[in-house]
């Protein structure tokens, strides 16, 4: 069953492009990555899901209900963490969290304290006295305190130190294990790689592709780094299936997709200084996608 269903969603801000014809769906229980460079339309899509903005055309539904028409009802089950968090400056953290909790029914009040302890958050301080990272922690706690069935994260890790990022990821994993579906938007691919099972790639307002993350990595792309001991022509390795070929003096670096024996044949009989064959990072695969589309 899909939790989020987006159909041909288009948003223009006046004449400026927001997103064009975006369609994808997120299944129940998965952690779904939403990847793209800044300004690609990730936040626009998310803000429509939350009915903060209205689509120009197309539709989006969550739990089978229309995001705009039945927004208030849907949002009972959504936890949202934006990339930048702002709260009422002269409130104390605990007051803000209790205010946030007051919007939901049947809240387990102990959860505030439990989450705050995990995130190492001082509840008695005033919001205006908090550092950016600490405000972010407030955001995490207020986004999760009502045990949402759908968690929407829009570039959530900025401002968190690596230790807190890890705790945050653990928390998201935990929520996911307990049944929450997660939509995770980011331009940092390594975090998506760590967390998500499927990803969709958005660029300049359009969805480029939707992939299973393992399939994507398994997609037979291998990264070759070959240091030659004898001179070969620059396009010696430029055969069918090679991408992103870079030559630095005697070192050839490229991605290869195809029959591995073909490449072994090319290397066979040549003298090498060094040879490495790696799993490419997602980043490199994506860069390849971006370029292909251009």
């Amino acid at each position: 069953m899909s939790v989020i269903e987006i159909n041909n969603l288009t948003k223009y801000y006046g004449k400026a492009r927001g997103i064009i014809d975006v369609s994808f769906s997120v299944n129940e229980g998965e952690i779904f990555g939403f990847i793209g460079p800044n300004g690609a339309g990730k936040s626009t899509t998310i803000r429509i899901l939350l009915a903060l903005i209205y689509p120009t055309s197309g539709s989006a539904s969550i739990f089978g209900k229309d995001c705009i028409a039945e927004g208030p009802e849907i949002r009972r089950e959504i936890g949202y963490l934006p990339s930048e968090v702002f709260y009422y400056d002269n409130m104390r953290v605990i007051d803000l969290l209790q205010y946030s909790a007051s919007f939901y029914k049947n809240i387990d009040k102990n959860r505030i304290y439990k989450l705050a302890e995990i995130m190492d958050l001082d509840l008695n301080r005033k919001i205006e006295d908090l550092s950016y990272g600490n405000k972010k922690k407030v955001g995490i706690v207020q986004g999760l305190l009502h045990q949402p069935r759908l968690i929407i994260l829009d570039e959530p890790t900025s401002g968190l130190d690596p230790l807190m990022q890890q705790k945050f990821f653990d928390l998201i994993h935990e929520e996911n294990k307990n049944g929450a579906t997660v939509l995770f938007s980011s331009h940092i691919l390594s975090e998506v790689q760590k967390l998500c099972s499927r990803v969709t790639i958005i660029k300049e307002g359009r969805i480029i592709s939707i992939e299973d993350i393992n399939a994507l990595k398994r997609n037979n792309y291998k990264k070759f780094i070959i240091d030659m001991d004898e001179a070969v022509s620059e396009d010696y390795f430029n055969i069918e299936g090679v991408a992103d070929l870079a030559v630095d003096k005697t070192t050839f670096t490229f991605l290869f997709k195809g029959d591995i024996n073909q490449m072994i044949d090319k290397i066979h009989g040549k003298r090498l200084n060094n040879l490495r064959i790696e799993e490419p990072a997602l980043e490199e695969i994506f860069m390849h996608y971006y370029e292909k589309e251009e």
Partner: protein
Amino acid sequence: MNIFAQELKMSAISMIYWTTALILLVFVFMFMYPPISKDIAVFESILNNFPISLRRALGITTLDLSEVLGFYGFIFVYILLIGSVYAMKSGISVLSEEIRSKTADFLLVKPVSRSTIVNAKILSVLTNLGIQNILFITLSCLIVNAYKQDSLDAAALVLINASLIQVQLFFVALGLFLSVVIKKIKTVLPITLGVVFAFFVIQLLNQSLDDPKLAYITPFAYFDVGQIIQNSSYDFSFLVTNFVIITVLTVLTYLIYQRQDIPSL
């Protein structure tokens, strides 16, 4: 209910300051009443040297300044002015503050509809105005009463004071409307002062020119103190005008806010 309580908490102190200012103003102005009424002939002869259009603009041609009610009517214009600034400021900021302080992303993703938010916020403004006016009317009536010489038209005094909230409601509605029409309001006070003073200047012109059409443009003309003292009643057509304008602006506010894109951070 939680939004309403939160709004009240955030706006209570400001309301108390403004209410105190209003009452202090009455106190200070009325303090000057005994010396002025004693030498009223001198005072009026000074005023009579002003050109008639200026005297009309100040609203003193229809008021008897030697009477306590007439004098109060003369100073009440400034009470209205300050009360209106407060009302307009509240109206403009109550919805736009969430966007200005970038907390819209917090509030609007909660499981509440936009109209619930507008309801709660308008109700908080009305509550503040209600408390302010109860305090103001009570204390102001007490102060004015303390200065009465023989008799005082209590009904007229209450009617004058009760016109404050009606003018304030006009500016709340206008402020709400402007706050959803103008995109990205950075600071509230300049717009507030600009608009309120513009209406005030129109009122000065109106009194000076005595143009019956001009009076409909500015709420400051709707509750003419001279007339209230004379008739002990409001002018019905202005009462209706005010009501219609407030209703239309409020309905538009709901409609526009309902369909508005919340700008991202």
